[in-house]
């Protein structure tokens, strides 16, 4: 058998939404310590922070930042959808809601990208 043959059958919207939610959370969890380390430079090494911010003023970094905005927004909106499922009466249309969450997140990230370029 090939590795994880079941994965090729995982095509459902909601399964994909759950995967994106998990992967975005993981990515943000990895990003956060780095984010905190950079911000802490402000205390005694403001010049270093400025140098860092200038260094990150390039297209590839801006793209990565837009990706982060997407990850944060999609994790927020996907999480909100789950919070509603878990705390209120059941409502149908979960696939549509999940798709909407991803779409809004993509738009927000795109707007961010356009603004910082």
């Amino acid at each position, binding site marked *: 058998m090939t590795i994880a*043959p*079941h994965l*090729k*059958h*995982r095509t*459902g919207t*909601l*399964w994909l939404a*759950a995967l994106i939610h*998990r992967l975005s959370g993981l990515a943000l969890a990895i990003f956060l310590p780095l984010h905190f380390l950079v911000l802490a430079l402000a205390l005694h090494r403001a010049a270093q922070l400025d140098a860092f911010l200038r260094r990150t003023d390039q297209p590839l970094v801006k793209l990565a930042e837009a990706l982060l905005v997407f990850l944060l927004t999609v994790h927020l909106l996907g999480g909100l959808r*789950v919070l509603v*499922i*878990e*705390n209120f009466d*059941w409502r149908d249309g*979960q696939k549509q809601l999940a798709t909407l969450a991803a779409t809004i997140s993509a738009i927000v990230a795109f707007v961010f990208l356009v603004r910082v370029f």
Partner: protein
Amino acid sequence: MPETSNELSVSLWRGGAEGRYETYRVPRRDSQTVLDVVTYVQRHIDPTLSYRFACRVGMCGSCAMTVNGRPRWTCRTHVAKVAGSSGRLEIGPLENLPVIKDLATDMAPFFDKWREAKGAFAPSRTRADDIPRIRPDSPARIAADAAIECINCGVCYAACDTVRWNTDYLGPAALNRAWTLVNDERDAGNAARLGAVAASGGCHACHSHQSCQEHCPLALNPTASIAGLKRRTAAAYLKGELKP
């Protein structure tokens, strides 16, 4: 191998946990179900094939297998719907359960988890007491009735990736049943039941993938039942009634 339009190429899992898919050629017929195909192989090609079925009319759930990657009742799956024009079928045993042989799985872990979730009715009265009056339109009874039709076929359990990833997870069917009993006014076992579903591997392990709801042949919604359990257990915990 060349397939004529009136023949199917069917791969069936042979063996136990270790094994392989073997391919058979089966004549295509109108209104054929996947169960018809498996039965044909066992009766006309290889009598050593092991599989399960009983009613063959979509009432018992015994014939559940993995068909082209998805768990389904084979007696209610038309070949035309899943094989397409290529005429290819891949049939294996249900996922997430130990394989006994070929297409038959050991359902014991599924029912063990049913028991662990306290999915059995605990009586609160004796025959000497009055019969309790349960209004069918009470919110609790409506909630219970929406989930009560489960016949333990195991399709949701096989479809659930949280079951696959977390061996402690009680699974959608067991939790769905627990929910029906939580909503049963006559039941006296809720303290133990909430404790059971609030423990590690209980309802909180569910990530709301909704694969259970998507695959349930009776269109039940264990995700909703589990959400109900999450609300109940969280409330009990915050009130100090649960000590995990």
